[in-house]
């Protein structure tokens, strides 16, 4: 049971791969602070990646 739940947390590591789906954000508008969508979305992926890796670090145990 524990092993299973540890495995499921690791699926989070695949979430940042969404950054590869460029059609989602390949656009100028809407801008934030002058940054086109294309740029600020990719910047947001940095903290998103950090959260995913951090959750796996905390939840998935250290043995595997």
């Amino acid at each position, binding site marked *: 049971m524990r092993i299973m739940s540890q495995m499921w947390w690791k699926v989070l*590591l695949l979430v940042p791969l969404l950054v590869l789906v460029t059609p989602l954000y390949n656009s100028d508008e809407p801008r934030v602070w002058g940054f086109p969508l*294309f740029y600020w979305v*990719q910047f947001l992926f*940095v903290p998103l990646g950090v959260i995913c890796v951090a959750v796996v670090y905390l939840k998935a145990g250290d043995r595997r």
Partner: protein
Amino acid sequence: MTVRWTELIIFAALFVLVTGLGFYAARWQRGGALDHLDEWGLGGRRFGSWVTWFLIGGDLYTAYTFVAVPALMFGAGAMGFFALPYTVLVYPLVFLPLVRMWSVSRVHGYVTPADFVQGRYGSATLALLVAVTGIVATMPYIALQLAGLEAVLRTMGLNGGGLAGHAPLFIAFVILALYTYQSGLRAPALIAFVKDALIYLVIIAAVVILPAKLGGWGSIFDAANAKFTATKTPSDGILLGANNRLQYITLALGSALALFLYPHAVTGALASRSRGVIKRNMVALPAYSLVLGLLALLGYAAIAAHTKPIVNAATGRGDSNTVIPMLFEGQFPSWFAGIAFAAIGIGALVPAAIMSIAAANLWTRNIYKAYLHRDATTEQECRQAKIASLVVKFGAVALIVLIDPQYSIDLQLIGGVIILQTLPMVAIALYTRWLHTWGLVAGWIVGMGWGLTLLYGIPNPASGKQHFGGSALALDKLSIVGWQPFAGSPTQVYVGFVALIGNLVVAILVTIALRQLRVSNGTDETTAQDYLQDEGSAHLKPVAGMLR
């Protein structure tokens, strides 16, 4: 061109400071004698979270990324921003494999990725392939760091022609070579603190002050957009076009997969004390990615500020690497430009040192000890590695002197394609040795041959070269032994990615055939438990030279 004295003096002062640190490093956190590879080549294998963060950060976010990525944004637009998704992807991807690599290396005392392959497959041939690939891919990477350093030196007015024009670079490199020889991995680890302090200072100042001077980020993006719209080239722009969308994705993913296959990245990870140190760093390292993304955008700031790159007196052509140095020169007071130049320059020394150490470790462990001097003592191994680190550095200097810096970036792209071909042997082998030794060899040959053939066929209209003009391949030109499945398509793709797929397909097919024929697949000296051991485990091999 006149010498810019203020900048040069500040640059020289900071350079002298890090040189002192470089020599002092030999005594920092010292465990045993420095004449063991664990000590010289891996810093005693006991760096904690902070040191590792600075070391790997200094290792991965190099001078090249500081000058070439913004230069690419300056020239081509959105395509250059691939560096951000690339560094977003790398940490989640390597989080699990890297700690396995750490554990198995600590249990068996591996120093290089090729050591691991040797132990996992019991095949000296396979280990040799990994070692040679690693060294060949690393050399142009070191040369690129020099290109970054030289761009700064030339911007400060040390822009001489001919061979003498390279003298300042040569002097800087002799000094670097000497303290690396003396202190090993501890030198770049210690200098990385100074490098990062300077880089963060410069970047924060730049992203606050430059938009204010240039009318805000909105107008910076508008200026870039206006420039790209005015050019005839269809592939540039502040958004991705139809042709470079696939190239953007495959280059980001391919570069992320390649990063921790580079020997210097593995060296940084193996030097850490525990699995926890690596895991915490995978969480903390993206702080650099934010900096990298902001830096990349300085390429657009340079467009808005009408920055002109300087003409390299050695080649007689515009040197796009000088765009960022010239932006600082034009927008900031001299003393601050001096600090920025020092940040870039020292940012070149740290990775160059780590890379040469990693290449030297490969040479010593997997070629010298495996083939030339099987019963070498640990002292002989260490002396060999120190000498090899000198040879590697001067090889890189020769590359810079002999070729146009523009060409060195293409060489680096080729290096990425090459190193990616070791993914099945190193990364997949961390999980399974289902792939057969000879299947891996066959896959490597095909991936390498195909990748290089495709690269050879890529022209670069901008620099007028017929071959090896970059790593973006039009699908139209993609040929599988003469068959062109996508003839007529202008969509571009990253060559390394294509070659890796070819490599994997061949490795799998040959493996299936050899398994049917029941050909022996060597012996594995590692066990499933070896990949899970952590600091304090009784199974870890003691680090040689430890005093306690």
